[in-house]
């Protein structure tokens, strides 16, 4: 019976208007009058922006040459970026010492790739090298000592400085943030109160104020002639600021843990620290990976604020090279270039976070 009926009904194709590109368009872009208007408006906006941007950035742009005079007036002058690339990437760091930065980049790259490749041995070893030995090595390589010529931090700049500030901020703020989060949830009243005060003070003040305090007020409190390095002052400010934010993110993760996990760990006789390190933190940190990476991306972008205390980060150095009388008037090119590089880094971090989530299988 059943088969007969099936045979009788002729299989017809769906109407042409509901499949393929046309169907997709109708369903997603023109499903109602208001959606149609919005779509047309969007198309018009894209049409008015994209072609002119492309012709500015690529078609009319100048790529070849070494002076301002070789640039066309209509399009972008990428020669400006090309000729100042050393300044943009390394700041005023002495040219003959650049190998020191480059070799550390290389070490970082090799270790990073090693860790990212799955199923390799000694990953823990490489990881702890990156977290413990690499920073110490970097300090020596970047600032000098042990036979290397001293390079003061006032010469650091460009993308290199941005990576230093973001790297220190990211690597150091996570452990401090975890400790603060644990402290705030502690049953010891003094620890809890101090952590809360610390977090609320740093969260209650804008980063720009923190940096201003570090660069303008702090020196006046010190005896005359005693100077802390400006970069270190800024680094401490950035680190505590992001630690306070991370502390609240981590605390959110801790609070989401079911009480049973704590009780189970305690009933096994684990001490407080072992309970936290072995049972609670691994699970709760896993839950808040997206928020933690979000904070890291925010730190990375916030590093541009060090411009207000006279440090030339990536964005600052682009504005700085634009004041060379030979290269006046190329701020657009500089900002577009900065936006692209920032996007690449932030997008990279974002992808890494998604990758990590997939690997740790947190989306259950």
């Amino acid at each position: 019976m059943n088969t007969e009926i099936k045979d009788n009904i002729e299989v017809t194709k769906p109407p042409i208007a509901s499949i393929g590109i046309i169907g997709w368009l109708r369903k997603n872009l023109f499903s109602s009058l208001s959606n149609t208007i919005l779509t047309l408006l969007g198309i018009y906006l894209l049409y008015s922006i994209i072609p002119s941007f492309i012709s500015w950035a690529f078609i009319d742009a100048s790529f070849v040459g070494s002076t301002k005079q070789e640039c066309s007036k209509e399009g972008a002058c990428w020669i400006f970026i090309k000729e100042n690339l050393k300044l943009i990437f390394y700041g005023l760091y002495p040219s003959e010492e650049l190998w020191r930065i480059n070799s550390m980049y290389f070490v970082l790259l090799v270790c990073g790739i090693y860790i990212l490749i799955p199923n390799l041995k000694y990953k823990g070893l490489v990881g702890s090298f990156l977290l413990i030995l690499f920073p110490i090595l970097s300090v020596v390589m970047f600032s000098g000592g042990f036979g290397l010529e001293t390079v003061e931090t006032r010469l650091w700049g460009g993308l290199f400085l941005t990576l230093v500030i973001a790297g220190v901020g990211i690597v150091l703020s996570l452990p401090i943030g975890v400790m603060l989060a644990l402290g705030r949830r502690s049953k010891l009243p003094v620890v809890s109160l101090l952590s809360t005060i610390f977090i609320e003070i740093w969260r209650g003040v804008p980063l720009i104020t923190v940096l201003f305090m570090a660069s303008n007020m702090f020196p006046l409190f010190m005896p005359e002639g005693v100077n802390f390095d400006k970069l270190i002052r800024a680094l401490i400010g950035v680190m505590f600021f992001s630690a306070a934010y991370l502390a609240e993110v981590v605390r959110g993760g801790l609070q989401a843990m079911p009480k049973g996990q704590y009780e189970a760990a305690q009933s096994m006789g684990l001490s407080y620290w072992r309970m936290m390190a072995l049972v609670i933190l691994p699970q709760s940190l896993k839950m808040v990976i997206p928020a933690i990476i979000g904070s890291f991306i925010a730190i990375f972008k916030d590093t541009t604020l060090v411009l207000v205390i006279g440090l030339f980060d990536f964005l600052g150095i682009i504005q700085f090279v634009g004041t060379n009388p030979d290269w006046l008037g190329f701020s657009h090119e500089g900002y577009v270039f900065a936006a692209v590089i920032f996007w690449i880094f932030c997008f990279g971090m974002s992808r890494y976070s998604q990758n990590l989530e997939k690997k740790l299988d947190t989306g259950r």
Partner: protein
Amino acid sequence: MIIRKLTILSAIISLFTVSAATAGTLDTVKGQGFFNCGVSQGVPGFSNPDSDGNWSGIDVDVCRAVSAAIFGTPDNVKYVPLTAKERFTALQSGEIDVLSRNTTWTLSRDAQIGLEFAGVNFYDGQGFMVRSDSGITSAMELDGASVCTNLGTTTELNMADFFRANGMSYEPVVFEKADEVVNAYDEGRCDTYTTDKSGLAAQRTKLADPDAHVVLPETISKEPLGPVVREGDGDWADIVRWSLNAMIEAEEFGLDKGSASSTCATTGNPVVARLCGKEGGNGAALNLGDSWSFDIISQVGNYGDIYEANVGASTPVGLARAGSPNASYKNGGVLYAPPAR
């Protein structure tokens, strides 16, 4: 016990303060072999990077001159880029020894915050730029104009004063950053653009068609820019002041960077001989070597040299010197150095 600890503590503190007070800046600087010079984060022609990443500019050359006077070489300077807000703190806290950062000499700054101005290396002043085809030839014709300028600077206040004093109305169009102001003016969102004349000249090069714009002759404010030192160290202030004066006087007596050596070898003029360090004992009076002024002139240049190299008519900044206050007093300017003797 506590009292003893306190005594030790106060002794340590007083040690710090005493040592800081007695060691003059010059001795400290000579001891460490360099000095710190506060500059801007980039003002074209004043302190900016050149293509190799070295600092250059007319403000930077003041620091180079001081270095040449003390060490015989212009390169024993460490440059510290500073924002407008932190520059005075940096000087007071000892982070820098000379501030040469297009800083306007005003009474309140000189008197209040413990600073001492050591001279003027550039006479600036606020002016207006308009489109040539607007037919405006004087700032007095700007009644009712819309004016582009920066937010919250003395520029904005000077502009308000100027229009009020002359009974004219205007419409301010303000922006946060110089780049935004220039773009707005270039796109025709305002009739005129006002900032310091040195800034106008530099920003003009950024316009789509620089030749279609003119800077009006009126200067509506006085902005004498010069190097600053900490108050209370007269010897150090003298060195900075006379390094600048030596450059100005050298120009007056025709001693320039290129010909300093040959002129000094043959001169019979006593003023030139003193500048060359051959007589007069100027160096000893400043606790410097006798060749201090010769080192400045032969390695950094006289005032005319550094002006033309950094902001003069042949540079992209393009500030013509003739007819401006920065010309020598002999040519109708106000540049006049007391005699170095």
